[in-house]
């Protein structure tokens, strides 16, 4: 058997062109960087995790198996360690106005403790990172991707005024508990947490310390993200994993879950060549900001909103059983290259291959028949609406 000819993106945030990014030639000639360890390193290993390099750390790609972990999360509750992600506290006079120069969200009117999905943009409107930002009083708590966090901090410090400070909360770990049974599990450990609605957050006491809990995640399921001091992370993970409904879940299932949920992964589906409009993230461009502009790349982004982007991120249903992965080409009926696959794999929930990628806007309508080319082999596909598997978020006021 050959060594792997190409990997799917285990690496949820690693930049293109590095090993494990799905690019067979990725990382060629790159200097290997020494890998860091995360606060739960021995916790994963004690539970039989298979470890891989990811975002500069050794991280668990799977425990019992990706499909079993994936399906468990869709039915019960999966515990993910996402401590590689960057937790930032941005503060100082005028922080809300200052952040609005870099991102298209409305931070001035942002209510307390309501996380918002946003995008750190370069001056051309390209996406430097995607993130969650939450007002905590006068400060903003921002969670960014692991592989991009150091670059994000440099970028923000360079572009924010001197009185606005970016603190990297290196002493905090981040756990995610995801799945339809997550709320009932977390309620037994942190009473009151299940009162949060989707995209609400708040501080909670646990064993004499503080947790910051947000009802959010990246699986398409209901769930929570829990910021905990690194010194208490193993105790919290133990308390959660002790529940019969909870299993530890690796990066492999995290990737297949978010792909089914139609959620883009930075470094694969989003990068500096893509804009929020190309990526179909128009919901992240606030109404007031559309009227007033004043954010990085506004000229291009507002024009794309008005006239449509030249290409768009879409989903694909792939005929047959063989997965088509990142790097495959999208072809029209005449064999012209009209796009590229940025994520793809086998959907454990649907038991079929699915993919995500960019295609010329004229060919982006749901149901459009196209072909993919991977390793000289052609695959029949149709443009499919996303998510592939419906979201089941806990929206307050919505019927269950």
């Amino acid at each position, binding site marked *: *058997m*050959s*060594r*792997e*000819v*190409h*990997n*799917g993106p*285990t690496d949820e945030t690693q930049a293109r062109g590095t090993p494990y990014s799905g690019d067979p030639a990725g990382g060629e000639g790159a200097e290997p960087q020494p890998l860091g360890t995360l606060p739960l390193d021995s916790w994963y290993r004690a539970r039989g995790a298979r470890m891989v390099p990811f975002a500069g750390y050794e991280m668990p*790609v*799977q425990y019992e*198996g*990706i*499909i*079993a972990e994936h399906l468990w999360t869709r039915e019960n509750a999966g515990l993910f360690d996402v401590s590689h992600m960057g937790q930032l506290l941005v503060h100082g006079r005028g922080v809300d106005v200052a952040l609005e120069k870099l991102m298209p969200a409305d931070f001035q009117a942002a209510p307390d403790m309501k996380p918002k999905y946003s995008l750190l943009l370069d001056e051309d409107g390209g996406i430097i990172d995607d993130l969650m930002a939450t007002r905590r009083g006068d400060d903003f708590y921002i969670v960014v991707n692991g592989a991009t966090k150091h670059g994000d901090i440099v970028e923000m410090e360079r572009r924010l005024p001197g009185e606005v400070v970016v603190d990297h909360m290196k002493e905090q770990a981040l756990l995610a508990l995801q799945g339809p049974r997550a709320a009932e599990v977390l309620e037994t450990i942190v009473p009151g947490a299940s009162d949060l609605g989707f995209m609400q957050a708040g501080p909670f006491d646990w064993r004499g310390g503080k947790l910051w809990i947000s009802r959010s995640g990246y699986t398409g399921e209901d769930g929570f993200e829990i910021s905990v001091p690194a010194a208490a992370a193993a105790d919290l993970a133990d308390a959660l994993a002790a529940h019969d409904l909870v299993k530890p879940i690796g990066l*492999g299932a995290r990737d*297949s879950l978010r792909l089914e949920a139609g959620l883009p992964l930075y470094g694969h589906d989003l990068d500096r060549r893509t804009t929020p409009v190309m990526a179909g993230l128009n919901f992240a461009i606030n109404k007031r900001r559309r009227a007033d502009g004043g954010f990085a790349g506004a000229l291009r982004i507002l024009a794309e909103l008005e006239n449509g982007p030249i290409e768009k991120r879409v989903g694909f249903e792939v005929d047959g*059983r*063989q*997965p088509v*992965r990142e790097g495959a080409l999208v072809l029209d009926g005449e064999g012209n290259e009209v796009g590229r696959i940025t994520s793809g*794999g*086998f959907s*454990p929930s649907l038991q079929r291959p699915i993919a995500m990628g960019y295609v010329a806007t004229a060919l982006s309508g749901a149901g459009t028949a196209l072909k993919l080319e991977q390793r000289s082999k052609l695959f029949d596909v149709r443009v499919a609406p996303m998510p592939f598997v419906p979201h089941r978020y806990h929206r307050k006021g919505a019927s269950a």
Partner: protein
Amino acid sequence: MSVYFTKEHEWIRVEGDTATVGITDHAQEQLGDIVFAEVPETGKRLSKGEEAAVVESVKAASDVYAPITGEVIEGNSKVADDPAIVNSDPEGEGWFFKLKLENPSELDGLMDESAYRDWVKTL
């Protein structure tokens, strides 16, 4: 009957001039959940080292090389229909293809089972 193993984590079971080829338990373990397998067609002549079959898990795609030269007698349609049997029984029901052995000397220098299992422990 003799069973040989390669450093590419393939096994070859030789009975008379028929060689059955599959991937080892270690290989399926490394791949994880297998979701796709493609086996060669009957009558195809494979040279040693040539790409013979494809196996894909949720995370990775790999080629299975012909470990020896010969004509394909049969591809295992069961693994194409239900690739998970490569995980559950890699060295039995989960075989990939059978070849008509042309050059038995190609088997020289391959590992026997105990040598292979010992070598895998060192990886």
